[in-house]
């Protein structure tokens, strides 16, 4: 992989949106009802739109390839997404809980990128911030509805949170690249994002009647290219067309 910090930072940002966007796209036609199905695929579309911006820029920095080759032609170890976004769509509570933990991070991340010294990242942040705000509103509402709903919905949400909360720590564990980008005024300060994240999540956990487990953080090194067992299956599906028909276009 290209040894350029900004390039790696763009992959780190883009891969999270790509893999989560893919997970959400798996729900197309399978949402619990029409409105939710459409909402979640809308989220997916927004995330893929951001991925395109990140990867077009990454390809430009690399001086070769396109957004498609960046998205589809890397090997597993070259993907830098966190483990949270790889977690499967076990049930609707898992989908919502994963989304909420992510959205509460994504919105302040976008706000921070708006202040980036890098013009392109600042523009991506400005565009993404509005979309992320819509997403967070949606997942927060569903957190409350499930957590404060029936006995069954509450049980499922709590169990989703028990599983997923351990993966949230990785979002805030600063990698070398993130540290360098922060110091150069290009990337976000994860410490500050964590403060925002805590405020948002504590507030919504309270109104959803759920509580995060005190299990230790999951051992997760997605930002270093080490992934869960789910990743190979995800990539097989994402990459199949480009591998089978190289350079294919719609």
């Amino acid at each position, binding site marked *: 992989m290209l040894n350029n910090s900004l390039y790696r930072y763009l992959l780190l940002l883009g891969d999270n949106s790509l893999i989560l966007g893919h997970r959400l796209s798996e729900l197309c036609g399978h949402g619990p009802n029409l*409105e*939710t199905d*459409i*909402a979640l695929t*809308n*989220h997916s*579309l*927004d*995330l*893929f*739109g*951001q991925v*395109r*911006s990140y990867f077009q820029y990454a390809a430009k920095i690399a001086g070769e390839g396109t957004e498609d080759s960046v998205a589809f032609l890397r090997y597993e170890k070259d993907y830098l997404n966190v483990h949270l976004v790889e977690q499967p769509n076990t049930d609707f509570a898992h989908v919502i809980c994963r989304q909420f933990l992510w959205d509460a991070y994504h919105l302040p991340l976008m706000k921070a990128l708006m202040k980036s010294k890098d*013009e*392109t990242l*600042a*523009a*991506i942040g*400005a*565009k*993404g911030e*509005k*979309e992320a705000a*819509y997403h967070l*509103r*949606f997942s927060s509402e569903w957190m409350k509805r499930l957590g404060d709903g029936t006995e069954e919905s509450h049980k499922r949400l709590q169990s989703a949170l028990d599983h997923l909360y351990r993966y949230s720590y990785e979002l805030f564990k600063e990698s070398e690249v993130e540290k360098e980008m922060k110091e150069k005024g290009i990337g976000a300060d994860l410490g500050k994002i964590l403060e925002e994240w805590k405020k948002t999540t504590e507030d919504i956990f309270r109104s959803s009647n759920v509580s995060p487990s005190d299990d230790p953080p999951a051992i997760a090194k997605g930002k270093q290219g080490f992934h869960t067992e789910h990743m190979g299956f995800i990539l097989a599906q994402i990459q199949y067309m480009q591998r089978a028909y190289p350079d294919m276009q719609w």
Partner: protein
Amino acid sequence: MVIPQPADIAPEILAILETVHDPEVPVLTVMDMGIMRKVEQNGTHLTIHISPTYSGCPAMDTIADDLKTAFSEHGFTTDIELVLAPAWTTDDMSEAGKRKLEEYGIASPLEATADKEALMGEAHKVKCPRCGSTNTHLVSAFGSTACKAHFKCKDCLEPFDYFKCLK
């Protein structure tokens, strides 16, 4: 950067731009939508900068193709650049565009505060484009395309789309 107004664009070019429509909301031209950021002319070659409405809006690729086709029919070659800054907001949509939306059956965007209240289901401010009633109710904040929410009118009972405020 200032968004070019019709008066800033050569009449010959503007006339062609006004024939290119949004494939998802076909009553709106690219000028009505306000996605135009810059038009540079060098003889018969044009470089056109457009800004996407939502990041993942799939209509952008179609619009870029349609612009190329429309201009090539008039002897121009074109490069289309997608630019992210300044970001598109619903304020960029022209007044004529908003009116056409309403006539087409899509409620046009409210200003930011009213929009937020409407999408949180706290206030009934979105006006039904069919009967004009504000006795409307939010079905889903995410509608048929990324830019719209789904509403229902409690008076005439018709469902309708609302073009979300984006600022």
